[in-house]
């Protein structure tokens, strides 16, 4: 190896470029592992919030309002004297729950609809995809406002509003993925064996289309959390005094001097979204053999 490299002046550095397996793995999946760790940490926090929180999240104590971070109140207190740290931990429950549930339900519905549309073809495809486009047209915030106006403000109502606009992108992606697989010869082979369309779709086509969908799901949870926080920020999400990150930022946003009230929930949102993005990128690299080569 080294003697060959020495014989060739044009060859790349005599040092072999090859990395050890561990180095390669770290270079490729290091960020993804970090992202996964952040998400696991937040999930543990959400589950164990009652055990970890030093105060009840709704405990109002006006005498202790707007205290800066201290050993007593790690992240300070808000206008009503509630402990920001405790509210942050409980807020993880609402934010993560809303983000994950919206994306998973939206992905399941969208995938099924897009898959059926692509597989059925002809008129059914046309009808289903035009319906999808129609849904894609709704601006989510306006729709959420309309639903909130009609059904009242609440976590579930907001999630329902998000779901209405959330599934179409999954339908679009699933349709294109199924269209690619549908033309493959192994699908024809399944037909020749005698399989009916439903079985071919579930057993052969969907398992081979699922990769990019998983990537989109992972990347999308962060997005859903931001949108939900945004809706809460606008006063459309949770009902006060439920702790929620977006709502917390909103409640404390006028307080410039008391920066802690809005900053810490904002950092929490940032960390979760980044965690999901890192994880999603890692999964995409792992599923894409071309990206794996490097």
């Amino acid at each position, binding site marked *: *190896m080294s003697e060959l*490299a020495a014989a060739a002046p044009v060859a790349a550095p005599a040092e072999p470029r090859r990395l050890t397996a561990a180095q390669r793995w770290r270079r490729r999946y290091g960020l993804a592992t970090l992202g996964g760790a952040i998400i696991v940490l937040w999930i543990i926090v959400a589950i164990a919030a009652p055990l970890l929180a030093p105060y009840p999240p709704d405990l109002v104590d006006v005498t202790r309002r707007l205290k800066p971070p201290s050993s007593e109140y790690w992240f300070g207190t808000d206008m009503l004297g509630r402990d920001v740290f405790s509210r942050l931990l409980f807020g993880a429950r609402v934010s993560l729950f809303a983000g994950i549930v919206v994306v998973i339900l939206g992905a399941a519905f969208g995938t099924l609809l897009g898959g059926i549309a692509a597989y059925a073809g002809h008129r059914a495809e046309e009808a289903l995809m035009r319906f999808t486009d129609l849904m894609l047209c709704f601006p989510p915030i306006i729709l959420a406002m309309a639903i909130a106006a009609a059904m009242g403000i609440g976590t579930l109502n907001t999630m329902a509003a998000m779901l209405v606009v959330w599934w179409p992108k999954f339908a679009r992606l699933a349709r294109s993925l199924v269209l690619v697989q549908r033309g493959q010869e192994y699908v024809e082979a399944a037909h020749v064996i005698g399989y009916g369309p439903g079985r071919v779709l579930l057993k052969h086509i969907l398992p081979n289309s699922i990769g990019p969908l998983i990537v989109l799901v992972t990347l999308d949870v962060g997005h859903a959390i931001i949108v939900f926080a945004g809706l809460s920020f606008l006063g459309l999400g949770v009902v006060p005094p439920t702790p929620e990150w977006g709502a917390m930022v909103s409640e404390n946003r006028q307080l410039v001097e008391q920066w802690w009230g809005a900053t810490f929930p904002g950092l929490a949102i940032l960390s979760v979204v980044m965690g999901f993005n890192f994880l999603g990128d890692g999964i995409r690299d792992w599923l894409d053999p071309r990206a794996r080569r490097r």
Partner: protein
Amino acid sequence: MRDVADGAGAPPKPDRDAPILEVRDLRTYIDTDAGVVRAVDGVSFSVMPGETLGIVGESGSGKSVTALSIMKLLPEQGRIAGGEIVFRGRDILGMTGDEVRSLRGSRIAMVFQDPMTSLNPVRRVSDQLVEAAIVHGRHDKASALRRAIALLGRMGISSPERQINSYPHQFSGGMRQRVMLAMGFSNDPLLLLADEPTTALDVTIQAQILDLLRELNSDFGAAIILISHDLGVIANVCRRVVVMYAGEEVEEGTTEALLASPRHPYTWALLNAAPRLDRYTPGQRRLTTIEGTPPDPLNWPKGCRFAPRCPFKIEKCAEHPPLLPSGDGRSSRCWVTQGGRSLPPAAAQVAATSGLVWSRPAATGETILELEGLVKHFSVPKPSLFAPRQAVHAVDGVDLTVRKGETVGLVGESGSGKSTLARLIVRIHEPDAGTIRFAGQDITHASGAAIRPLRRRMQMIFQDPYASLNPRMTAGDIVAEPLRFHGITADEAATSARVGELLGLVGLSPSAAAKYPHEFSGGQRQRISIARALAVSPDLIVADEPISSLDVNIQAQIINLLIDLQERLSLTYLFIAHDLAVVRHVSDRIVVLYLGKVMEIASSGNLFDQPLHPYTRSLISAVPIPDAAVERQRQRMHLQGEPPSALAPPSGCRFRTRCPIAAPRCASEMPPLVEHRPGQWAACHFPGQV
């Protein structure tokens, strides 16, 4: 056309006696996760000005990497680890990026295998051709456009002034390859590197492109390096051949001498594995194959790299042989022939290795499949709202009877409807008109449930071994799927026993059941596909180009397997292929399709010895034969142009637009399929007149 060749800015004539390109001991390595692949591992050759050199070898032998190394277009992971590439006295490897770029596309041109992806789909052909001409600063825009039009015309594109404004998708594969050639010649290259330029094309178009390459060589004086896996293609164009195996050059010599008496067993195997149109022994259905697969490129064998598969190996082969010249302008990397031994003719070898006697039961005469007036049109989107509805006439009235135990070959260019016909028969598609009777039952419009019991009697083998197996299922599950679905085996134990049996039947070990498709080679995957088809113990197997994406030697192995299986299980085959030599080899009867219609049906012997239809004639004459002497003497009847669009097929006889003997009658009257000789049917007004 001379004005194109000698136009302004023609290069200074190089020294006629010095080689234009010299590759010395080239080593190109590719870094992968699994280790260093020594893709090219010591290759040396030289090309004289105006010479034609062929590089032949199977996939993975390093031919394409050699070409990419010459152009310095290696992928990111590739690096040239040693050797020299001297172009007109200068080492390309020592040049800067700018210097190499000024060579590419001006002094050295390259044409790639896949004409579908080598042109930019969103830019007009004219823009791409003009850009290629002006990028090296030897033309301005106006002269570049004039030259581009002249070159397109030279490359055989009719009305180039109009066609040059088309987008690539408006051109067929053959025409795109002509555009690529025009682009390559826009700066008067001294060397053309053509990497499998005809592999993706039909035989008739291949013959046109090969003719064009030869003309370009003689008219423009450009040297050509032609890379191919097909010795016939090489023999057609090249005067000298380099044979590559496992990253090494194993033999070099003039085409004639090398094909007449190969001095390396690999060349010998390559030459004998492919059936030849001009050498056909009736009854001799098995092909000569060499055992095994090419060695692992991460870990080439220590001694002779071919020794593990070599039928002639001797003790000395444990030592790595050097490439030794043998005086007469030839050289080979083999200890066996170094001692003066010559390699035996193929036939003797077959008899010795196969040991199987011709024991095929004759076709019983009982009809298993009957097609009558079968029609399938695919509607395409209307170009505008008020345009008339359009349809691709994929299959347009096909009658065919297949008897039990026979092999019927189906040939034709792409777009002739072969694959659609296969999919109609196994009812992946539903016919628009006509009837299909299988085993006495009308299945033309049978529902999925009604046809399910018959699925056990007819199966299909697909073309692409990479796409025909579900990548997420193990080989065992793939083969077990039909067993479970049809409840053929009673329980899981019986299923896995049967899977092992089936894998054994196709020459795989039972341990293969636990592996996933990507762990197998192309040939092995095709075996899994065959095992899946055999799982239901079918009577009829429709094989849609089952070997066309495999290397020559693997092709021969699969053909032999199919023949073995037919004899042991008395199968009936409908065998679709575009390789006429292969079809002749395996088929009892052959059906020639053109634009959805049957042109001729005849026994395999009659069809090739005395074809009646002019289309059959031209198809046969387009097949290159790996024998330079035979190639020179052959009478050619090359088809001109491309097949017409199946959206609006010609009136009367479909073939008349390309037929050399078309008469006015052919345009008005559709010739019926008539039996002109016993068992030989042709749809032509003037059968046998060419």
